[in-house]
């Protein structure tokens, strides 16, 4: 590839990185904490690509604008040495094009039953008993699971809670799920809560919902997914930060 093309691809890569970070779309793919690093990487990549472009065009000017200059003179020499090596750089345009045009969605129900499940008992967090009388308490699906395993859900104290996630099953009783990610969507592990006690049509698969309800103790006390007896199911747009 010639130097100007390499520079142009590089500028595009940096621009896409910056755009992802500034619009917040990056949260669909990586954990929120990576934002600043992506920002720095985007700026460095843009500067690098610009520097390459400027040098390539300046050399062309110097050599009379024939276009052949990229292969003459000192700056152009290296292109003979590795002309084949960096041809693979064209592949960088694939994610660039994908992200410029259509940003793939956050992970959905497709991989819920394919990934490793979170071991909710891995943490030794202890929870304060919920205080009744202040309306539904919003909590993460992870906390819900952990409280459910902690003394069989005694800390819920019958207080209504509010959970947000996407619907993972086509028919009732459905599970509401959210992924936990450590670094990026590749290591996502789903956490689920079973929603029971709904009537009528359940929301479509992959629809984001907020569930209000109370903890429903397991009938068998076994290893099953904790359940919530729902009093309200509200469909909501996908949140900006889709992972826990």
């Amino acid at each position, binding site marked *: 590839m010639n130097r100007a093309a390499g520079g142009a691809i590089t500028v595009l890569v940096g621009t896409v990185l910056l755009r992802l970070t500034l619009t917040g779309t*990056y949260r669909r793919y990586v954990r929120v904490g990576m934002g600043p690093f992506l920002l720095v*990487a985007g700026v460095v990549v843009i500067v690098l690509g610009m520097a390459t472009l400027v040098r390539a065009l300046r050399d062309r000017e110097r050599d009379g604008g024939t276009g052949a200059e990229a292969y003459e003179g000192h700056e152009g*020499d290296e292109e003979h040495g590795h002309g084949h090596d960096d041809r693979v750089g064209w592949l960088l345009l694939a994610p660039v094009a994908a992200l410029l*045009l259509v940003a793939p969605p956050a992970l959905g129900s497709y991989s819920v039953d394919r990934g490793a499940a979170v071991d909710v008992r891995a943490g030794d967090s202890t929870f304060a008993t919920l205080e009744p009388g202040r309306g539904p308490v919003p909590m993460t699906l992870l906390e819900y699971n952990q409280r459910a395993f902690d003394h069989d859900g005694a800390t819920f104290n019958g207080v209504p809670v509010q959970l947000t996630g996407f619907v993972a099953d086509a028919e009732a009783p459905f599970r509401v799920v959210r992924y936990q990610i450590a670094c990026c969507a*590749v290591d996502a592990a789903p956490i689920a809560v079973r929603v029971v006690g709904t009537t009528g049509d359940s929301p479509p698969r992959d629809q984001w919902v907020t569930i209000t309800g109370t903890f429903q103790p397991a009938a068998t006390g076994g290893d099953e997914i904790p359940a919530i007896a729902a009093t309200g199911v509200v469909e909501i747009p996908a949140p900006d930060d889709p992972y826990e």
Partner: protein
Amino acid sequence: MRVGETAGSAERSEQRAAVRPDWGVGLVLLVVAAAAAARPLLDQLLDRPAVANWATVFVALAVQAMPFLVLGVVVSAVVAALVPAGFLPRVLPRRPAVAVPVAAAAGVALPGCECGSVPIAGRLVGQGAPAPAALAFLLSAPAINPVVLVATAVAFPGKPEVVLARFLASLVAAIVVGLVWAGRGRDDLLERARRRVSTEGRPLAVLVRTAQHDLLQAGGFLILGAAIAATLQTVVPRDVVDAVAGSGPLALLALAGLAVVMAICSEADAFVAASLTQFSLTARLGFMVVGPMVDVKLVAMQAGTFGRGFAVRFAPLTFAAAVASSAVIGWWLL
């Protein structure tokens, strides 16, 4: 002057094409325009859950790796611009028995994941560092740096022996591979890393030129690897791995294979390993030792940086060393 060294008829024809001004930039714009025209098609494809899942995993792998790749590329370019040619061979110990362990231990100093260490190791080889030492560094850096070890401690609360086992097993595997390469490796396979961008000219020019070259090359192969990893993850059902859950050698091999396929960043793999509770700790150790050393995107990047013939020999050697070292250290410590 490197003109003519590898110049063949292909390049000469490229040169003719280059007579049109800016054909490169024009082609880039053309590709983007073509993609824009195909947008409705892309939208339709993303309506299928499996395709959407593939795209998300693909983009996530690429985006996640970029900061580390940029770090690696910048470090590599700084080495090229500031370290004079002939300096590294002069100061590094010549005997592999000394150079390899020292280089492997030096991996502690590079905070990052595996994508960043490939261009750096390539640059070290290009600058004349002994290949076994550079390769030991390549393997150890993503596995034993403080960021990764802290992440491992967080993922396995109350089990410091897992962190120690990971550190030791990774270090041992890196040293073993380095020493084996010193004894039986073929340095002629590293030609690709040796014949690289010239380091003549002012430091700033060298900096820009090498960084640009490394970014395009390592980045291109990263994309290739990410596409393969996303495909495997979308297509291969997970039950295959869960079927051999438990302890024993088969479980260790299964998780080592899973690490190759998943291609997770070394800063995050401990969390995945922690969640694989149906497997023994030794098997999960294997997952964390193999992952930063051999995975599909990493092998693609190594093939790009050092050459295909190299990667074909190096990846199996590393895989075997990593599994063996996990088995021994796991049996001893876990």
